[in-house]
């Protein structure tokens, strides 16, 4: 089995990333040309003022007495132009928001679905929080960039372009002068951006540390009090909070220097225009209106450069976000659904076979070796062994949460890899040890096993499982809210709900992975009995942590160090010397000492 981790740091270039990212968002590309054309129209609004000033001074004020009708006419024409560009800007904005939001919503949902389609093993190579970021923060960063930064780049280019063209029309000498002033700044800006980007990275790390430290004061409240370590915890939190603050101030200081720098460069350019401009004026190369218009045109250089570091930073974040979401989408689901080509299993009791199955986790030693076995339909199987013996791996292979490295697992004669997921998940259900519940009521959580179930069906299922009494003892019965991750219930109660949920799904093979380990003994025994009744006619496999499960099974599978070392009914196994006899002895001594 090769390591299948989520690709995130692929060596894709920025341009390649953007190209692939855009190819995933057809909604964005549709009508993009029109939106860009509108953006160009909107940008031309910026040079209306300098042109109006120049016209007023040169034409309107020629010969001492202003030409009022001409100036009024020019002003009116310009005002109409301003309104038109504003309308263009409005339409452009609405189109841009619609296109970006629609395309990113699609990408978000696709990413979400793909995460669920990845195998458990692949999912576990990433922290859950990181996976969540792929469909939240990463997408938000792309959207910020498309709606602000990316637009700013277009606007800034347009603005610099139209300003330069107009400047060139007025005076090429002054145009060169202005560019000569701004080029060094443009060269320096990426440096600032790198500095800023590093500073922001530190801020993000420190913020993470800070949040982790703060959470200790809440999540660890009981331990902190029991061990009187309030002061120690407070110090740790203060340090993390202060480190975060320092990092934020450092980043802010870098931003704080870019703005004034641009102001100074602009002032130098303006002073240069005046100094050189008057000499050009003397030689008749420029009119006074054009010279004054230049002073206004320089202001068009200021805002693009002031925002450039932020824009570059956003661009970098967006590319990184894109790279990460592409990384998820590019990771093939290695335990893939054969889909429509797959086999549909008919309903009815299930038989299982393992044929020379091997498994090892990526980069690890083999955890399952040469496992060959058959489980006949309707049989009741107990799986036993010490921690690390391969019991849980066996369960995960049987439910196809993972695929064997070699050998095959078959159900009713079909290789699991060929069985359609919809059919597989309907017929084989595992109840994991950790009873994860969704934030909602008890009823909603149980119904998760069978979305079409009525309240009566759910009540009936609870009765069949012998849980009606427990349910009645709850303040709001089935309407009891379970809290986030089911935290309002005890660990044992969570397991009861998880079991009811799986039972409601009505599978033909039910696999319990120490599914009642946190339930009190009396309840556990009641439950075991009820399960015995309701799984009659189905295949039932229990990973056992106590003796009676093994004793009551038709057959016990004993795992040791990744191998199936013994199998047979309890009565036989307990008589032969071996792993099972040892396990049995330790159980008995634990129960009767």
């Amino acid at each position, binding site marked *: 089995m090769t390591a299948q981790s989520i690709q995130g740091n692929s060596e894709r270039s920025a341009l390649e990333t953007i190209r692939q990212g855009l190819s995933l968002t057809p909604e964005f590309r549709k009508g993009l040309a029109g939106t860009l054309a509108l953006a160009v129209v*909107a940008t031309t609004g910026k040079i209306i003022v300098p042109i*109006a*000033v120049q016209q007023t001074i040169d034409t309107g004020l020629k010969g001492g007495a*202003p030409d*009022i009708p001409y100036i009024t006419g020019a*002003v009116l024409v310009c005002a109409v132009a301003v*309104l038109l560009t504003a309308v263009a800007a409005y339409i452009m*904005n609405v189109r841009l*928001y*619609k296109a970006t939001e629609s395309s990113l*919503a699609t990408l978000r*949902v696709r990413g*979400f*679905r793909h995460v669920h389609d990845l195998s458990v093993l692949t*999912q576990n190579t990433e922290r*859950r929080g990181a*996976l*969540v970021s792929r469909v*939240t923060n990463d997408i938000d960063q792309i959207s910020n960039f498309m709606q602000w930064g990316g637009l700013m780049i277009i606007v800034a280019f347009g603005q610099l372009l139209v300003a330069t063209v107009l400047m060139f029309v007025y005076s090429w000498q002054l145009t060169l002068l202005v560019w000569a002033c701004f080029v060094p700044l443009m060269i320096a800006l990426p440096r600032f951006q790198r500095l800023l980007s590093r500073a922001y990275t530190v801020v993000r790390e420190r913020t993470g540390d800070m949040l982790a430290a*703060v959470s200790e004061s*809440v*999540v660890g409240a*009981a331990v902190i009090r*029991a061990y*009187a*370590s309030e002061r120690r915890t407070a110090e*740790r*939190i203060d340090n993390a*909070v*202060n480190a975060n603050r320092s990092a934020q101030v450092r980043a*802010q200081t870098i931003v704080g220097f870019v703005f*004034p720098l641009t102001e100074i460069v602009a*002032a*130098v350019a303006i002073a240069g225009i*005046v100094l050189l401009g*008057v000499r050009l004026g003397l030689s008749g190369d420029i*009119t006074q209106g054009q010279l004054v218009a230049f*002073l206004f045109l320089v202001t068009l250089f200021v*805002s693009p450069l002031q925002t450039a570091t932020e824009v570059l930073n956003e661009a970098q974040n967006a590319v990184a976000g894109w790279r990460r979401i592409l990384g998820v989408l590019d990771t093939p689901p290695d335990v893939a659904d054969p889909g429509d080509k797959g086999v549909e299993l008919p309903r009815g009791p299930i038989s299982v076979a393992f044929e020379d199955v091997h498994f090892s986790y990526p980069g690890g030693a083999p955890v399952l070796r040469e496992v060959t076995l058959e489980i006949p339909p309707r049989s009741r199987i107990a799986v036993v062994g*010490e921690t690390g013996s391969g019991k849980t791996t066996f369960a995960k292979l049987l439910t196809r*949460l993972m695929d064997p490295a070699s050998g095959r697992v078959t159900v009713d004669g079909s290789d699991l890899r060929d069985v359609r997921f919809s059919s597989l998940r309907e017929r084989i259900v595992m109840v994991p040890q950790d009873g*994860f519940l*969704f934030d909602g009521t008890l009823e909603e959580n149980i119904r*998760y096993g069978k979305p079409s179930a009525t309240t009566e069906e759910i009540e009936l299922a609870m009765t069949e499982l012998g849980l009606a009494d427990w349910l009645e003892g709850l*303040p709001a019965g089935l309407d009891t809210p379970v*809290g986030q*991750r089911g935290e309002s219930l005890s660990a*044992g109660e969570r397991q009861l709900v*998880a079991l009811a*949920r*799986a039972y409601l799904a009505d599978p033909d093979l039910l696999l319990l992975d120490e599914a009642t*380990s946190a339930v009190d*003994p*009396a309840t556990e*025994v009641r439950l075991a*009995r009820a399960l015995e009744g309701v799984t009659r006619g189905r295949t039932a496999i229990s990973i056992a942590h*106590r003796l*009676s499960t093994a004793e009551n099974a038709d057959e016990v599978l004993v795992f040791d160090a990744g191998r199936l070392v013994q199998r047979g009914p309890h009565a036989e196994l307990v008589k032969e010397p071996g792993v099972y006899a040892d396990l049995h002895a*330790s159980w008995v001594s*634990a129960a009767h000492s």
Partner: protein
Amino acid sequence: MATKVTSAVMRQGLRVLGVAIRTEKALFALAVLASAVYGGMTVGSAWALGWATQHVVLPTFAQGNVASGALWTGTLLILGAALLKSFGVAGRRILAGVIQYRMQARSRRDVTKQYLRLPLSWHHQHPTGQLLSNASADAEAAWAPLAPLPMAVGVIVMLFTAAIAMVFTDLMLALVGFLIFPAIAVLNLIYQRKLSPLATRAQQLRAEVSEIAHESFDGALVVKTLGREELETDRFRRRAHELRDANIAVGRVRGLFDPMLEALPTIGVLAVLAVGALRLSGGSIDSGDLVQVAYLFTLLAFPIRALGWVLAELPRSVVGWQRVQAVLDATGSMEYGQAVTTSSAPAALEVRDVSYAYGEAEVLHDVSFDVPAGRTVALVGPTGSGKSTLVQLLVRLVDPDAGRVLLDGVDLRELAYGGIAESVALVPQQTFLFDDSVRGNIALGLETGDEDVWAALRLAQADGFVARLADGLDTRVGERGASLSGGQRQRIALARAVVRRPRLLILDDATSSVDPQVEAKILYGLRDAAEASTVVVVAYRMATIALADEVVYLDHGRVVDRGTHEELLKRCAGYRNLVTAYEREEAERAAMDVTVEGEEVSA
């Protein structure tokens, strides 16, 4: 939730800002000074340009020669104004950041100090997620308006200076300004009022989308084992589409107002040119004045929007501040007495007539029992019988509503702070590890040598895996011990308790994630080493109960019976029912098998 910029929100918001200003007086004064320089010099740079136009550019074209004195004066004026303005900008931005981040850090420190100070009963009443967001997002939101605030103050200075400059230049041109700038301000206010609720809604939906993803990925195993990927995707898609629509609604408002706010100053400049031409022809102003006013309009157009930014942040700020304040205003704390314990002998524990309720629901009624020094007592009872609550009372995580808990005859409430922790060590059901090294997690500030730590790890059957960790005792365990398995975490928590050589050790189902064989070793080790301590243990497993000298059987929050294991087995039906469930089951089965076989024989 306040989402609109109403006058009430404005008043509250300004009061919040007042708090910040009073707290950071000196820095705020400096920031305002820098902003004032920035505001003044923005107007100053327009004036310098006007001056240069009037005294350098126009005379040059009119007279055909350059007045070099005026030329250099103009240049210096332009550069000087820009330099001062730059200082103002840098000072304003950096100081605004410093003030904002200092206030946020202060709120976070104060809020977490409260979390550490307030009694556990207060924690029980507040969901974890809420407390975490009080310390992070709310503390951030409360002080968010501080970033644009100095700028806004600078803008006010700027507007005043500009108004004066314009009035002195020409009353008619000033009038254009007095029409345009208030119009921009009003438009901006309408903008923020329209945007604010939409932005809040989008923010809310963003949080919900994130919550769904979090929950769904956390439960990935359940989703997979039941094949509910499509159901989850539908759930996510619905919310993601709501977020999309909310963002587009925000975009519509932005798309409408942003171009208007850009166009208004441009219209202003055009109006200045038209009016200016008239005034020029009347001889009331010169061309330099015209250029100066037009330039001023260009420069003011953007900063004036800073006023709107402050207003836009206010509703969020008020909500954030109120939430932070609610934590800071929370009363109730553990009061400690003066009594100190000096004994190093095993402690005796007495519980007398103790009752405790979570809100209305009473979970313990008149519970009484005692644990003589050096003895081991098992607390046994079905799920929900009140065992864990009782344990919290024994180490004074909460105080009883009635009755008393006595340690060596002293009421826990009379002991000085830290006194209980010195004598008593609790290993709770829910293991909690700090994001620290293995050593740090075990010592928790206790001065102890590595030999003691290893000895404790050996007792907890944790020495083996800790020795195999990459950095041994220095290995960091990750956030909440994420890099360890449940059983490993429990054993570290156990070592944390025994390293203190407590006079009373309390185990609340503390080995549930540990293999039975390993658990047995731990328990025997404890019994051999526990000569020096009294032990209270909450358990289901027979092996654990068997170690106890005495059993206290709890059901529905009452002590039903107490005595040795054998005594209770004989006389207490509930107890017998619970602890012998497995054995009885075995026996019944054996009996059933016999009947079945018998039937077969007879058939």
